[in-house]
Structure formats: C-alpha cells, structure tokens
C-alpha cells in the first residue's frame, strides 16, 4: 500500500517485515530515525521475539551481531560515517567470517572536518571489506533493497550494506509502496545458516589461518562476490514477480542506447542526472546515464556491455581518494580496459554540497567540447582555495584550514580574516 512516509520510517518498516531476530544499534545522524523506529517496534512486541540491544559503541553493535549471526539469528544494524569507521575492524571481521548481516549505511561524509551531511566517503572506506554494497536511488528502492538484502546475504552467507543517501533519502518524505508481511514472507525464506555454533555439532569459527591456506580462504570470499553478480539480478527478478515492480539489480541504464556520452553515478543523485540527460537530449546532445546499484561486487561485465558503444563516460562520484582522485571511476576504467572509451572523474557533492542540474549540464558540455582535467571538482571555490594556499605559503602558522576556509567563504558567524 502506498504511504507518504519518511525514508527512515519506510526502511524501518521494511526491515521489521523481514523479521530480524537480533538488532544492536548505536545512534548517529542521519541513521537515528531508523533505529529509533525499530527499537519502538521491538519494545511494542511487533517483531515477534526480536531482541534490540542498546550498546556502548558501533564496534559493540556489529560485534553483537557477529555473535548472534554465528548463533544462527537473522541480524540487522544501521550506521554511517564515523560510526562505520568506529566499527571498521568488526566490518572486516564479519566480511571475512562470511556472516550474513544486513546493515543500512545512511551515507554521510567522514571527518575531519566533522560534517554530518551526505556523501559516499563512509561506505567507500569499507568497499574492500567483503560486504556486498547496494546503493538506493530513492526511498522506494531503499525499502526494496533491504528486503532483497536479507535474502541475498543469507543465500550467499555474505554481509550486505544497503547504502542510502543521508538526509536526501533518510529524511525525505516521499510516496513509498510498503509491502505486506505476506509478500515479504513469500520472498525471504527462513534463515538456514551455513555455519552455526551448535553444542550438538561443535565447530571452531574464526580460527587462525596461516600462509598455507589464507589465500584460498580469501579467494573464496571473492568467489562469493562473483556469485553475487549472478544472484543480484536473479533476486531482483524474483522480487518483481512478488512485488510487481523492478528494483535493484546490478545497474540501471537510462537512454544509453546510441548515447555517445554516458553519465554514471551511485545513489540519489541519479534523479538529478536523469533530469540533466532529459534536458541535454532535448538540446540534441547524445547522452544517457547509468545508475550503479551494486558497487560491490563491481558489475564489470554488465557495465562494459551497457556502455560499449559510448565514447565517453563521465563518473559523478561523491567521494575523494585523497592523493589520487576518483574511486568509482578507477573501477569503471578497469572494467572498460582495452576499449577506447574516455572516462572522466567528477568529484561532486562532498559533505552535502548540492549537485545542481545546471552544474551537471555545464560539466557534460565542457567535457564534450573541451575535455575535463582529471579529476574535475564540481563547483569548487577556487578563489577561496588559492587565497588559503597563498596564506599557507606566506606564514608557517597559518592556522586550521577549515576555519580559514569558513572565514573565506563567509559562512554565517565567521569573521573575515
């Protein structure tokens, strides 16, 4: 049934329908509304015998789930940003152990400087941890991906992060079609663990592995992701059968047929990008766009097929590999190796900076007419940067960069230097 509902509430509703048995959470904006809603549902007895643990840290939260999942329970948590970094060691551990935990990432920037707004730096920092990473374009997809995530995680025995843009999605009220319990029960089967702590059949989980076997164990984690490349579209189709709508999959193409230039992005900015594509096409530009839903596993083959006729890919990414540039674009380049396609990197939307349609359109035109420097930073205030660089050269104790830039840019309350 359709509801006008906040993204976080909708996701909490969907998670509850998946009947998680153990949840352990630690608050951090913009994830809080999800876990608040789930804690209320558990307390009110709306999720059967489900346990909700208020823990002392994100590291504790994921560690609780590691124990619960190894005990054969369906598990869920949500976090973002600093919280994800704080649980980093456990993130890799859950990935390495192959425990099918589902976690929402309400994508948010990483400090310093501390910043609560949206970008993808947080989940990118964990891209190689062995977790599947799915990115939602809108709140309907966020809801649907969570339902798919439980089935995918448990089928492969591999943890899954569902990434949804902080505030832009988590706090947005949109019309969302919320599924029924019957639909979800029909889609998500009971959890049958592949490894479990069972006094009747004792096993050692998490034992030490030396050089003689480590590489093989790691390869098998990689192999799981190779299988996920097949499983993700299959489970998306199975989802469509029951829920009568398409959601998820590896990637979504928009007017890519005969497009010479393809814009590629993850998450909610694909809405803006599709609008930009519409406008550009009206002006006669042969452009299309591609939304990556799965970032891990990286859908190299599907991507290559989708854009094989394009001359240029412009990757808009909300992250920055400091000292290098693009993270997503590097993966795209690897997927397209051997093809003459030009791949541009546009670093955009860091720390919640809006990505206006006009800026997207200008950048595409600039790329096609003049080419872009690599990487290209969208809407950067070069005057402020250059003045700060000059100051840093002039005086040794130039002071904290963030404060200086705030003064430069004239943020409310900041006095000019």
């Amino acid at each position, binding site marked *: 049934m359709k509801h006008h509902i906040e993204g976080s509430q909708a996701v909490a509703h969907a998670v509850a329908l998946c009947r998680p048995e*153990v949840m*352990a959470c630690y608050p951090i904006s913009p994830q809080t509304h999800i876990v608040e809603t789930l804690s209320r549902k558990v307390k009110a007895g709306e999720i059967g015998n489900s346990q909700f643990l208020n823990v002392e840290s994100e590291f504790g939260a994921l560690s609780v789930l590691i124990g619960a999942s190894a005990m054969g329970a369906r598990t869920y948590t949500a976090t973002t940003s600093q919280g994800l970094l704080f649980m980093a060691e*456990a993130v890799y551990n859950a990935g390495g152990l192959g425990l099918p935990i589902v976690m929402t990432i309400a994508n948010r920037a990483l400090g310093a400087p501390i910043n609560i707004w949206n970008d993808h730096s947080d989940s990118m920092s964990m891209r190689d941890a062995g977790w599947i990473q799915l990115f939602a374009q809108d709140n309907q997809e966020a809801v649907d991906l969570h339902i798919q995530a439980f089935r995918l995680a448990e089928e492969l025995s591999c943890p899954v992060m569902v990434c949804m843009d902080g505030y832009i999605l988590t706090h947005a009220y949109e019309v969302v079609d919320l599924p029924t319990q019957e639909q979800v029960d029909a889609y998500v089967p009971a959890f049958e663990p592949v490894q479990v702590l069972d006094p009747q059949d004792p096993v050692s989980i998490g034992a030490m592995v030396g050089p003689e076997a480590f590489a093989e164990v790691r390869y098998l984690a990689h192999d799981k992701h190779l299988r996920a490349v097949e499983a993700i579209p299959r489970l998306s189709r199975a989802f469509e059968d029951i829920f009568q709508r398409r959601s998820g999959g590896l990637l979504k193409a928009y007017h890519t047929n005969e497009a010479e230039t393809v814009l590629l992005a993850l998450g909610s900015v694909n809405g803006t990008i599709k609008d930009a594509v519409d406008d550009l096409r009206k002006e006669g530009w042969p452009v299309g766009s591609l939304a990556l839903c799965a970032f891990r596993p990286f859908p190299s083959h599907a991507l290559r097929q989708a854009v094989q006729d394009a001359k240029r890919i412009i990757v808009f990414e909300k992250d920055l590999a400091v000292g290098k540039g693009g993270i997503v674009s590097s993966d795209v380049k690897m997927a397209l190796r051997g093809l003459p396609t030009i791949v541009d990197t546009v670093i955009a939307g860091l720390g919640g900076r809006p990505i206006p349609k006009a800026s997207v359109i200008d950048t595409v035109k600039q790329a096609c007419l003049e080419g872009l420097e690599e990487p290209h930073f969208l809407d950067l205030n070069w005057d402020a940067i250059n003045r700060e660089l000059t100051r840093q050269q002039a005086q040794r104790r130039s002071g904290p960069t963030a404060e200086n830039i705030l003064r430069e840019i004239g943020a409310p309350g900041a006095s000019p230097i």
Partner: protein
Amino acid sequence: MSYQRVKFYQTGTFTIGNRLLDESNRTVQAGMDRTNSLNSGHRACQGCGEALGARYALDAVMRATHQQMVAVNATGCLEVFSSPYPESAWQIPWLHSLFGNAPAVASGVAAALRAKGRKDVRVIAQGGDGATVDIGFGCLSGMFERNDDVLYVCYDNEAYMNTGVQRSGSTPPRAWTNTTQAVGAHPGNPMGIGKNLPRIAMAHGIPYVATASVADLHDLEAKVTKAMKFRGARYIHIHVPCPLGWKSDPAHTIKVARLAVECGLFPLIEAEGGEVTDRTPIREKVPVEPYLELQGRFKHLFHPRDARALETIQAIADANIHRYQLLPVKA
C-alpha cells in the same frame, strides 16, 4: 564456598585430596566424564597457567550446563595456541572474532538464544588481561551494564603475552615487560597505577564476581560452577602465571600462583550484586619477596636491592589483606 576444602598441611597442597573425598565433592577434572573442552595437543608453552585455567574453567561450565555451552574467545595466547587448523583443540562450539570485542560477541550469542527462546544453551566469553582490562573494556562494561546472560572469564597473566610480553593495564608495579624495561631511574612498570577489574565489575552491581587462581583449582571450579547458577552478567578473574612473560620456571607455575595468593597480592574473593560475600583466608601469611624473587621480571628489584619498591609492593599486599580481611581473626 559450598564444596569441602581439604587441607593437607603436611604437604602444603590441595591436589591429592580428591581421592579421599565423597564423589560429589571431587573436582570436575577428576571425573571420568570430564569433557576435555580444551583438548591436548595445543601449542601453549610448558607450564602455561592460562591453558590450565581455561581447561578447568571450561570443563566446569560444560558440566554445569550439561554440555550445552558456546564459547567466545578474544584474540590472545589462548586463541592462538588452541585454534590453528587442522589442530583446533576445541571440543566445544567456539567462536573467535577480534581482540577487543569478545564480551559484545557473547552478548550477541546470548541475544540470539533469547530470540530463539533457548534457555538450555549458555554462553561464556574469555580473554586475556589485555583483551579484558584494556581493549575490550568498553564492550565488557556494556555487557555488564545490560546484564546480558554471559559469564566472562579473564585469564590474567599481567601482560600482552601473545605479542611478546608488553605491558597491559593489569601489569603490576615495577614488573619488567618489553615496553616497561628494567632501565632508567624507575625500572619496570610505573608505581601507583593499574586497574582492578574485579572491583570495577563489582561496581556494575552484576549478579556474581569472583577471583580465582590456578593455585586452587578446586576453588576455581567451584566458583565457575556457582557462576553458572546465576542468570545475567558474571565475571571471573583468574590469576594465571606465564613462565615466558614472568621469566619463571615452568615447573613453578602453581607455586608462583600460590605465593601470589598467600602474600595478599592476589586475593581470592566472591561478590554478589556488588557486595563482597566471601573471601579465602590466607593460611599463613608470606611476605611478597619470595613471590617476586621467583620471577625474572622482578629481578631488578633485588640486584641491587630496591628497598623502597619492595616496601611499596608489600604495602599493596597488606592493603588487600586489610580490605578483604584475609587473615583469620585471632581468638
């Protein structure tokens, strides 16, 4: 404690008492049905107190739970010497996740059992002093505060042994470790700091806290067995000499442990709901020096003799004796 203490003053040992006891009072280890939860063939050093303590503690939990036990292990010597495939020494369902999260992982196991409505299976978590008093302290305090149904056992060998003997929050004053070398004006670990985790555990008001030592394995087993009678968070802190890190003779592990108890540096106590309920009186008080002298990690206190340091350590022992009234009150 509820079991019958056997005293063989003529030999100074409790170990041979079993055969003379009523069957119900004998140790779990003496039973034909002991489970060998931590089986032979692991890679601990000769004379390892931790291996001994773990074996007794786990077999006692196994008996108390009718073999319905799951164990969570922190990274550390116990995990490393016991687990490498294909020689895992564990005969029980066993999970190792990380160095600093064993209490939380065990909370998760307990939560899963709650969610599944299984009261028969119980969970214990175990780790070294580093895992417990330092890196896992936040998770441990959280587990206590939530009163999750977990027995946490700390094997205290007073340093990070697995990484090659570095100082932990449980390293005693003046002890040599590889990060508190016996050099400079104040050789060894600094005086006057440290963390008393049994007392911190008691401050959480959890149902049961106890200290135990491999010097008194019957007492250790009895405390573990008693701990399993409670639901909620329980904590047992076991003193386990490490010949490698303490630079003591592997043959002296029990002797060293016993001297620690009898000099008052490691008091054996029990507490319920945050209040001390029992303590093991010291039979015959010994000074701290014979205890320290058996361990190379304190060698610098004797060559040349550091009278001030020895007095300060003696004062710590005396304060324990006073706090827990460890000496029998003379009639």
